[in-house]
């Protein structure tokens, strides 16, 4: 069957095995020459693609919940949306969430996803207490900080290559309401942006949208959005009655692929000008529901079709904090010179992060969406050189084209990863198109 991940590129015609029980997964793995787990396919490129894909969405049972501690145990195909729907009404929220709730717990572990609170609480791995992992010979390993410790740590960010995550225990966090006390800060340019990020460190959540195409004294202008979980007394009288209920929003589905020219640098520029223009000057406070704060894009289902049939990719890198200003200025300028606009540009400051193949490290991370076209690849190669120069690296779950060289440079612990991987994936049965490209 024809399948692709979120970027609709590449599209491959492979076997997809949908499973709903652990014994089914065991036999599916044992029968296959090469396979990889796939959750909701929200990675952008070729991480969850292989000759045989094991579709984990049916393995989605919640197995236990302790209302005293907030620890939930569930199967790997449970989505973050499910966890919110079930546990937010009981006063518990995700400790870490990416910019979409349509990802599975297995995918969140395999990519070791981060949220807008990375600088405060680390990535998804920091809140995963244990998981069970299916190895290539059908064995099930319990992994935690005490048992199979090395495999436990290699699996975070390991992109499904250490085995298939079957179940996991995750620590949720208590909240008083389903709302966020939000502040937006209009940011003039890149220098101002760095300043605002420094100031925003005390906030639990912070992220900035930036305009990639403005130049001169407004190069790198944008809007910082930061927030805290709202407490009960911050809500209005109506919200207080049902603090975990948020207003229902109509969702829309993009019914077909838009032609690629719709999102070109002109429309991006016009949109950015409009967005920036609409944002009031200075700092503005408001109470918003969690969906609008964390998942503004989820309202349009299949918005990925907006980039046309050829698809798109996301280029996301992290560079050390001290190089932030120079590196970002160079990157913005290079993109402007190329004439290729990026619609969605998100900037965030990471905290420290332990790990082997996980992406985050202390510094600035920028994520940019680009439509796939022949001219794009030379631009990204050029951006790679800048990222390298400043000792940065790229995020595997967004990647579809980085060279083995770039990977080796960014992930100095790859050899350790491979040594550990060989204990659960001896013959390399778990493999993906991405793993092959990177020689993993």
């Amino acid at each position, binding site marked *: 069957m024809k399948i692709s991940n979120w970027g609709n590129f590449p599209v491959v015609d492979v076997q997809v*095995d*949908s499973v*709903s*029980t652990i014994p*089914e997964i065991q036999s599916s793995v044992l029968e296959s020459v090469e396979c990889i787990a796939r959750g909701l396919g929200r990675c952008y490129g070729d991480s969850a693609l292989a000759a045989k894909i094991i579709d984990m969405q*049916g393995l*989605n*049972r*919640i*197995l*236990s*919940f302790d209302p005293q501690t907030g620890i939930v145990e569930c*199967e790997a195909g449970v989505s973050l949306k*499910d966890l919110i729907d*079930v546990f937010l009404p009981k006063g518990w929220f995700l400790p870490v969430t990416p910019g979409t709730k349509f990802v599975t717990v297995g995918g969140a572990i395999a990519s070791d996803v981060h949220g807008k609170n990375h600088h405060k609480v680390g990535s998804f791995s920091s809140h995963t207490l244990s998981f069970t992992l299916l190895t290539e010979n059908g064995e099930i390993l319990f992994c935690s900080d005490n048992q199979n410790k090395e495999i436990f740590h290699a699996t975070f960010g390991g992109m499904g290559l250490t085995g298939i995550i079957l179940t996991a225990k995750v620590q949720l966090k208590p909240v008083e309401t389903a709302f966020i006390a939000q502040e937006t800060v209009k940011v003039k340019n890149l220098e101002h942006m760095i300043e605002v990020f420094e100031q925003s460190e005390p906030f639990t959540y912070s992220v900035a949208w930036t305009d990639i195409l403005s130049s001169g004294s407004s190069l790198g202008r944008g809007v910082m959005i930061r927030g805290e979980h709202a407490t009960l007394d911050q809500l209005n009288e109506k919200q207080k009655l049902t603090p975990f209920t948020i207003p229902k929003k109509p969702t829309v589905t993009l019914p077909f692929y838009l032609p690629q020219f719709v999102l070109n640098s002109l429309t991006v520029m016009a949109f950015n000008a409009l967005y920036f223009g609409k944002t009031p000057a200075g700092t503005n406070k408001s109470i918003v529901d969690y969906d609008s704060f964390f998942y503004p894009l989820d309202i349009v289902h299949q918005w990925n079709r907006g980039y046309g049939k050829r698809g798109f990719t996301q280029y996301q890198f992290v560079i050390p904090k001290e190089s932030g200003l120079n590196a970002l200025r160079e990157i913005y300028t290079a993109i402007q010179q190329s004439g290729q606009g990026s619609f969605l540009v998100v900037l965030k400051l990471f905290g420290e992060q332990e790990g082997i193949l996980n992406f985050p490290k202390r510094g600035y991370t920028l994520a940019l969406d680009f439509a796939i076209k022949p001219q794009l690849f030379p631009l990204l190669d050029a951006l790679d050189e800048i990222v390298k120069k400043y000792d940065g690296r790229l995020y595997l779950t967004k990647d579809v084209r980085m060279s083995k060289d770039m990977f080796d440079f960014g992930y100095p612990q790859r050899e350790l990863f491979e040594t550990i991987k060989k204990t659960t994936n001896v013959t390399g049965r778990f493999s993906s198109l991405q793993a092959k490209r990177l020689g993993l």
Partner: protein
Amino acid sequence: MSTNNKLVLVIGSTSDIARATVKEFAQNGYSFILAARNPEQAERDAKDIAIRFSVECFVKELDVAKLETHTAFVDSLSALPEIVICVAGYLGNQELAQADTIEAEKILVTNFNGCISILSPLAERMKQRGSGCIIGISSVAGDRGRASNFYYGSAKAGFTAYLSGLRQYLGQFGVSVLTVKPGFVATKMTKGLPLPKPLTALPEEVAKDMFRAYTKGTSVLYTRWFWRYIMLIVKLVPEFIFKKVKM
């Protein structure tokens, strides 16, 4: 035996259609006894349902093909459910069944004798109580025997006839019977089969249709709906033509 007017007994609860159906009823506040031949797997489903929907969900072991255990099973129920949904079924392998009576018998007992054996004592108790609903998952395959699966088809035809008779028998006692005839559904039963995508439903759609049919008091549900008309045409084809068609 006491009674519980929001209790559903699901026979063959680990099936994909059953799992979706349980979620649909759970959203509407029902509690469950999940009967399955693999109680460990059913236990995982039960935990999931209990946590997601804050309803009670118990598990009991039941093998539809072990007819001798059925009376004891029914006797052991702590309460007589309001609704019984029989989802267990076995597609089997037609070619194997033609060559091997063991396979043929397995198809017949799972889809026909076994279901009747477990439903009949439940039906009697519901009749005595004077309320309840029995939902049986048959199949469009039972509407007309076809060369490609007539062991399965004839067992389902038998089950359809049983349900229709049961409906007539129980109607005057306040017990209703719903016959569900799914067309193609994407489940583990049909995994790997080349089902035509536009005709194939998801288990969740079947479950929604089933719940709606239950609340409306429907007798026979085709799901997706158009199968009623497809099967009407299939049934109308004269035998002298039908026997030459490859299906």
